[in-house]
C-alpha cells in the first residue's frame, strides 16, 4: 500500500476518532508533505454533511464554503504562522500555575469585562447602602446632626417683619453679620457680577433706617 493511501486510511480513522495520540501525531507529521490527505479529510467531512442533510438544503448553507476565497486556507496558514500560541507542555513545565494562560485574552473577553464592571458596581452599591444604614443606627445620626447644626448660634434674634400685602415673616438677625455689613457698606447694593442679576438677593444693612 502506498503512503498516500495509507494516510487516507488513517485520516478516515481520525475522522471517526479511532486514532490514538501516537498514531495521530505520526499522521499529522506526515501530512505536512501530503496535501492529498488533507483534501481527503475535507471531502470526508463534506460527504458527511451531505449525507446528514446539512448540505444543499438551503441556498446559504449550500455554498457557504464555496463563497470563501480560493486562497482562504493559504491566507489563514500565513496568519496562523504569525501567531505565537503557548505550547501546553512548556507552560506546564515552566509555570505550574500557568499565569500566562490567565493573561491571554479570551475570545469572549469583552463580555467578561462587562461582568467585572457589573460586579464592581454591585459591590459599590452594597457599600453605599451599608454606609447609609450604619449612619441611621448610630447615636449621632445624620438627621440629628443636621438638626443640631441648624440651631441658630447664640446672639441670633428672630425678628418679625412686615411684607407687602399685610403678610408677616420671621427674619433671623445676627449681630455679627450686621457688623460685617456695616463695615463694608460700600459694597451694598451691588452684586459681584457688576450687572443686574434678578436671581440674586443682596444682603444689605441700612443701619438706622431699619
Amino acid at each position, binding site marked *: 500500500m502506498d503512503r498516500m493511501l495509507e494516510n487516507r486510511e488513517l485520516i478516515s480513522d481520525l475522522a471517526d476518532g479511532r486514532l490514538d495520540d501516537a498514531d495521530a501525531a505520526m499522521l499529522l507529521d506526515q501530512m505536512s508533505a501530503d496535501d492529498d490527505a488533507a483534501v481527503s479529510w475535507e*471531502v470526508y*467531512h463534506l460527504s458527511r454533511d451531505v449525507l446528514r442533510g446539512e448540505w444543499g438544503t438551503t441556498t*446559504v448553507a449550500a455554498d457557504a464554503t464555496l463563497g*470563501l476565497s480560493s486562497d482562504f486556507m493559504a491566507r489563514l496558514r500565513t496568519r496562523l504562522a504569525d501567531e505565537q500560541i503557548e505550547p501546553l507542555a512548556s507552560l506546564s513545565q515552566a509555570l505550574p500555575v500557568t499565569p500566562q494562560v490567565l493573561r*491571554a485574552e479570551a475570545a469572549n473577553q469583552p463580555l467578561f469585562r462587562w461582568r467585572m464592571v457589573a460586579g464592581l458596581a454591585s459591590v459599590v452599591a452594597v457599600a453605599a447602602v451599608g454606609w447609609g444604614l450604619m449612619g441611621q443606627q448610630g447615636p449621632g445620626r445624620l438627621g440629628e446632626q443636621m438638626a443640631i447644626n441648624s440651631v441658630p448660634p447664640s446672639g441670633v434674634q428672630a425678628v418679625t417683619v412686615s411684607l407687602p400685602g399685610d403678610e408677616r415673616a420671621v427674619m433671623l438677625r445676627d449681630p455679627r453679620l450686621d457688623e460685617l455689613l456695616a463695615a463694608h457698606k460700600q459694597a451694598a447694593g451691588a452684586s459681584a457680577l457688576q450687572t443686574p442679576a434678578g436671581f440674586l438677593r443682596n444682603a444689605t444693612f441700612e443701619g438706622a433706617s431699619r
Partner: protein
Amino acid sequence: MTQPPTILSPAPDDSDLLLVQRAVEGNQRAFELLVLKYQRRVARLVARMVRDSDLVDDVVQETFIRAYRALHQFRGEAQFYTWLYRIAVNTAKKALVDLRRNPVMNESALRGRDDDDETSPVSNELSSDETPETVLAAKEIGEAVNSAMEALPEDLRQAVTLREIEGLSYDEIAEVMNCPIGTVRSRIFRAREAISAKVKPLLTNQTGKRW
C-alpha cells in the same frame, strides 16, 4: 436511498479534542484540520449574519484566528463547535458594529436583522456571495455524493450509512452488521474513497487548490 433524518445525534468518538490538544502543543496542522472540518459551518453561520462575501471571508478568518489564540482555554467541557460557534457569532457582531461605525461602509453588507441562529429560516433570495455558479456547484457536489452512495455495494453503503447518518460507533456497527471491527473500518474507508473519487474533482474545479 432513504431521506436523511433532520435531527441527528452527535457522532461518537469525535477526534476534535485530540486535534485541539495537538494544536495547543504547537501542531498547527492539527488546527488546520479543525478549520477544514468546520469552515463550512462557520461560513454558513456568518453568511446568515452578514451579506458581503468579502466580509464573510474576513469574519471566518478572524473567527479561526481568535479561536487559535484562545485554544488553550478550551477544556472540552462543551463540543468544540459550540465553543467555536460563540466565537464566530461574537466576531460577526463586532464586524457589523465596526461596519456601522465606518462612514464608508457598504450598507448592503448588513443583513439588517439580528439573526445569529443557524437554525433560523433562510431567505430564498441569493446573497451577494451566492452566484448561480456556486449554487449549481453545491448542487452538483450534493448529487455526486448521493449518486456515489447509490453506486456502492450494499455492505459498504450500509456501513457508511450507519456511521455517517445514524452516528453509530464502530463497535455498534460491527454488532449490527455481524462482522469484525476491522471489517467495519475497511468498509467505511472504501466507501469514503469511492465517494471522494466523485467529489474531489468537483471541489477542486470550483474552488481551486484549497489546501
